[in-house]
């Protein structure tokens, strides 16, 4: 019996030490990515390429999702607000929901699924097919040449995508509330304009999306770089990217919301 307990404790210890080691390795990787970012800025065309792959190619999913989320908000908001005779405030509800929460969070979740998983798979496959090793043997630092531009490309893309998501969402809400249901357009826009504060709502939303961009991109790049060089390894790393990023986004959203909107 004591042996079983010792074995159990040893297993827990092993897991904890392994987790701490991986956390340290990830932190070192992140620090190296930042330290070796000079290449990304000196040769900005490398970042532009990643902006295209992470940002431009994510536009369709962001625009379509934003439109539907805005339309759903318009429908649900009108349904609830009309009970209290406040259906004109549907524009405010749509805009605040999107700029404060849904824009950054849903855009980041979509970004993690679409661009984050693609980054992990691409770097994991580069490792599996020895492209990363080949780069090292050619005296080219893969963190500076491969990881850095992707990190900055993802970081710049994320707030832009979140802003587009929110803008399209507001348009979706307008289509439902004003065009389909018949809420007064003047009331829709003017109430929104009065209620949405640049510093409190828009800037905080942008800050959230930047933080999510850092988290998602760093997780995706680390998982790809750390993936075992096998088909199974890359597949596992891609799954971990989506799961870990999603949890990180939701956890960070709670912390940021607490700090920004309740003064905790």
């Amino acid at each position, binding site marked *: 019996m004591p042996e079983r307990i010792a074995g159990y404790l040893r297993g827990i210890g092993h897991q904890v030490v392994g987790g701490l080691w991986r956390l340290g390795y990830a932190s070192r990787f992140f620090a190296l990515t930042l330290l070796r970012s000079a290449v990304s800025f000196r040769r900005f065309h490398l970042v532009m390429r990643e902006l295209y792959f992470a940002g431009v190619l994510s536009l369709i999913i962001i625009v379509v999702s934003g439109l539907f989320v805005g339309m759903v908000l318009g429908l649900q908001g009108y349904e609830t607000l009309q009970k209290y005779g406040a259906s004109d405030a549907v524009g405010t509800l749509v805009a605040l929901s999107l700029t404060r929460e849904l824009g950054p969070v849903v855009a980041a979740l979509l970004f993690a699924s679409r661009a984050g998983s693609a980054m992990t798979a691409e770097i994991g496959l580069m490792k599996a*097919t020895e492209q990363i*090793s*080949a780069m*090292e*043997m*050619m*005296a*080219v630092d893969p963190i500076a040449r491969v990881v850095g531009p992707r990190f900055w490309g993802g970081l710049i893309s994320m707030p832009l995508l979140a802003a587009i998501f929110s803008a399209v969402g507001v348009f979706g809400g307008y289509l439902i509330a004003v065009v389909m249901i018949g809420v007064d357009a003047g009331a829709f826009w003017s109430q929104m304009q009065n209620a949405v504060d640049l510093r409190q709502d828009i800037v905080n939303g942008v800050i959230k999306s930047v933080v999510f961009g850092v988290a998602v991109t760093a997780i995706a790049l680390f998982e790809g770089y750390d993936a075992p060089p096998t088909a199974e390894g890359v597949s596992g790393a891609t799954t971990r990217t989506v799961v870990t990023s999603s949890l990180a986004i939701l956890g960070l959203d709670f912390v940021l919301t607490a700090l920004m909107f309740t003064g905790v």
Partner: protein
Amino acid sequence: MPAGLIELAAFPPRPPMENLVEIKDVNFSYDVRPVLKGINLTVPRGKIVAIMGLSGCGKTTLLRLIGGTLRASSGSVEVAGRVMGELGQGDLYAMRRRMGMLFQFGALFTDMSVFDNVAFQMREHTRLPDSMIQDLVLMKLHAVGLRGAQHMMPSELSGGMARRVALARAIALDPMLIMYDEPFTGLDPISMGVISNLMRSLNDALGATSIVVTHDVQESLKLVDYVYFMADGAVVTHGTPDDIRKSDAPFVHQFVWGEMDGPLPFHYPGAAYARDLEVGPAGA
């Protein structure tokens, strides 16, 4: 006297050493599992040296030690008189710029064309104008017979073509040392012959030195000047290709002639056959 000349007079260039690579008493382990045990090996300048042995015997690890991507647990790996394990990142990268490596399946950058793959190192390490890079890349591709494929993507190439492009990329900066990791794996006989001829002609034309890690015996013995034979992380024998062909060491004989049974048994060790089948006295 200009300052630069004083410096040169104070540090006259050393005469080139006879051996480009010298490996002395090298041991290497992954965690606690020993991979290389007391390896001693030299690669003379201008020669093509093969390192042969079964899969997993430590050949590729040895190549990575020479390239400086791994560090020996003990002993020293010297390339051109520099101990690879003692170099900082800057010196290590400077040394690697003078090396070329052909990976097992080419390791071409899949998001770049054939031209861009070969131009990669020139763009990363030199400030040559585009027109000169264009000429140099076409010369390298011409040397491997693939100038006409410059616009193709790696996914459009056959295995043999990919290996030739990778070879053109490996010699892009005219390296002093070219390393080949299983260059013949998965190639048809014609491609194998082409790669083999290119390895010899490029080595001689560039005045380079080559190390070939392989388990393709017959093709390698036609190509190389000297062979080191490895088994279980140690060098078991070495000699010229003729010495290896004539060797009566049981393991070398089995390996060179592809014999089914020998020191390396056909059957993986296990329980007695009769016992597994539950027949005979043990199973009754």
